[in-house]
């Protein structure tokens, strides 16, 4: 077609003079007269114009499916036809809709947990499961273990594309690490004071020896022992050891208590003995000093007036002695001395001596004088069954 404007205008003028056979001349001349729109529109859509909006809407929906939002703590991984395209962080993002691109969102901050082994309760119920969760220790004992591993996804890309079933492998690796550590440990420490060290060492082995090689994109935070028990078949024996340990302490404490019971009183006693001795010592010395002072005073007196004092002391003593009613006194004159024969009846003496053991008397120094008549018999002192009574038996007089 000739789209020259000038020529078209000329043609129009010519056509205006000679009305065209087709359309009317009512409106402005149609420069595109020769081109009927009807010719260039596919005929099948002629009656279906209203359908188009639906397809457009569907198309928009399809396009919109590519919108996705990555929350904080998450990472989005976009693949194009399966191939890794990009990693995206927080915020709204767009990917070309499926099947061109697709996005996977992983939570990388969340700490996840896997548990390895079974609890001892479960172990009690099921023998086969018990065998599965038991571990062999370094000192040839068996323990049941359940522990957990806390980890998070550190690298989303590695996590998705480096390992098939990374969580399963992590569990296996953790078990291997724990077995290694338990196999180097003593059962007593695993059950009691060594738990922390076992956990720490298992973590170290897991991280350094194993995961460093595997490069799974996970980061293990902690390995935690949950339930560690000796197997049912031996748990009573283990408990008994604990109570035996307590028994030992108890025995020792008992002995300590006994010791506290007897030693302090002994110390008290000891003090008492020494104090008594000291008291006695003081007393004895003071007494001696007193006596000697007294003696020395008397000596001084004596020296000052010897004869007089001597006589005085003598007479005082005699007074004391002779004034005692229990003392039998016999005075003989010089003349009488010749006529009275002092007669000591030795026969009479013997009964006294024989009687002595029976009578428990202080042995008396009594001298016998059965026949003397000047004797004023001393009234009996009444001092028990003394030899005085029997010794002065004959000689008459009231007793």
């Amino acid at each position, binding site marked *: 077609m000739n789209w020259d404007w000038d020529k078209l205008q000329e043609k129009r003028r010519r056509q205006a003079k000679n009305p065209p056979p087709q359309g009317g001349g009512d409106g402005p001349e149609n420069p595109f007269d020769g081109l009927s729109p009807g010719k260039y529109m596919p005929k099948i859509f002629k009656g279906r114009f209203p359908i188009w909006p639906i397809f457009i809407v569907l198309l928009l929906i399809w396009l919109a499916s590519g919108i996705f939002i990555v929350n904080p703590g998450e990472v989005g991984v976009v693949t194009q036809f399966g191939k890794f395209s990009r990693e995206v962080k927080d915020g709204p993002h767009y990917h070309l809709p499926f099947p061109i691109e697709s996005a996977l969102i992983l939570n990388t901050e969340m700490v996840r947990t896997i548990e390895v082994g079974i609890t001892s309760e479960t172990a009690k119920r099921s023998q086969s499961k018990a065998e599965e969760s038991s571990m062999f220790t370094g000192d040839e004992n068996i323990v049941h273990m359940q522990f957990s591993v806390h980890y998070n996804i550190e690298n989303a890309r590695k996590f998705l594309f480096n390992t098939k079933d990374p969580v399963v492998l992590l569990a296996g690796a953790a078990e291997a690490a724990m077995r290694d550590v338990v196999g180097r440990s003593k059962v*007593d420490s695993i059950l009691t004071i060594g738990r922390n060290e076992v956990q720490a060492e298992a973590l170290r082995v897991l991280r350094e020896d194993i995961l460093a090689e595997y490069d799974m994109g996970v980061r293990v935070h902690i390995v935690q022992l949950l339930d560690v028990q000796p197997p049912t078949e031996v748990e009573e024996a283990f408990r008994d*050891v604990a109570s035996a340990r307590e028994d030992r302490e108890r025995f020792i404490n008992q002995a300590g208590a006994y010791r506290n019971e007897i030693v302090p009183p002994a110390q008290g006693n000891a003090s008492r003995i020494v104090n008594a001795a000291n008291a006695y010592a003081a007393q004895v010395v003071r007494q001696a000093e007193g006596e000697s002072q007294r003696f020395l005073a008397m000596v001084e007196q004596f020296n000052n007036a010897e004869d007089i004092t001597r006589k005085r002391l003598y007479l005082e003593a005699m007074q004391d*002695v002779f004034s005692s009613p229990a003392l039998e006194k016999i*005075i*003989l004159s*010089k003349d009488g001395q010749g006529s009275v024969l002092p007669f000591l009846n030795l026969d009479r003496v013997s009964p006294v001596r024989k009687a002595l053991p029976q009578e428990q008397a202080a042995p008396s120094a009594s001298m016998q004088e059965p026949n003397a008549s000047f004797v004023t018999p001393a009234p009996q002192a009444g001092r028990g069954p003394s030899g005085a009574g029997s010794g002065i038996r004959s000689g008459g007089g009231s007793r």
Partner: protein
Amino acid sequence: MKRSVIAVIALILVAVFFFTQCVFYVREYQRALVLQLGEPTLPVREPGLNFKLPVIQSVVTLDTRMQSFIIPKNFIRTSDLKALEIDCYACWRIEDPLLFVRTMRSEAVATQRLRDIVYSRITAVIGTKPFNDVVFIIKDDDADAGRVQEGEAGVIAPDMALHNPHEQAARSKMMEDILQQSKEQTKQYGVSIIDVRIKRMDLPNRDAIFKRMNAEREKMANQYRFEGQSENLRIRSEAELERDTIIAVATGEGIRIRGEAEAKAMRIFSEAIAKSPSFYEFSKSLEVYRKAFKDNTKVILSKDDPLLRFFNN
């Protein structure tokens, strides 16, 4: 109008045919090989959109990630004919997809064959080692068997194995051997064994072990109790000794003090008496007369007695 409809439908069918037969995806963790008439062709197809010829070419996709399989519990004998139960896993990955497809055909087949190979290596290597090289046993003096000393946590560091420093090295070497041998034998399949690890090692015949554990614990319990009792006795007898000693010492001290005091008293007396022995004799005699002759005595006095001097007058 009809022709247009047919044309469009035909177009759609062609498109569908094209997409299903000629286009395929390979994911990031996969590689694919196009087989022509059953034979794998190069190049190895990378992740993303890939194309192939329809009909005469087919696709095999391989997961090239690191994979793992377990070798379930099995009895394995050591060189000294002791049995162990071992539970392992192995990690591997496809390194050469072409070789892999040529030799293994499918991943299921591959896993089984690899498992067999690794298991045979484990059996072979462990079969050459004696029991004590395979299983680490903490050897104690009998007296402390199994007991944890005060302050000792009880985990032996890898490089500080008790008594047998070469044991730990021996075991690592053993695993190393297993790994290397496995690698060797699987190279021909285009795979690489990355790691072989023992998840659990157990001795069969658990009953015997339990018996032994019980006996050991019983021995320990008895030991504790025995210790407690003998310590008890020791402390008691020591305490009694202490008590007796304290008393004895005090008694001795008491006697000494008394003796000293008495000696001192005697000294004081004799010092005083020494000043006038005659007076002492005199006054003491008078005291004797007083006390001894007061009672139960007969005294015969003569009138001439100086005492009765004034009596006659």
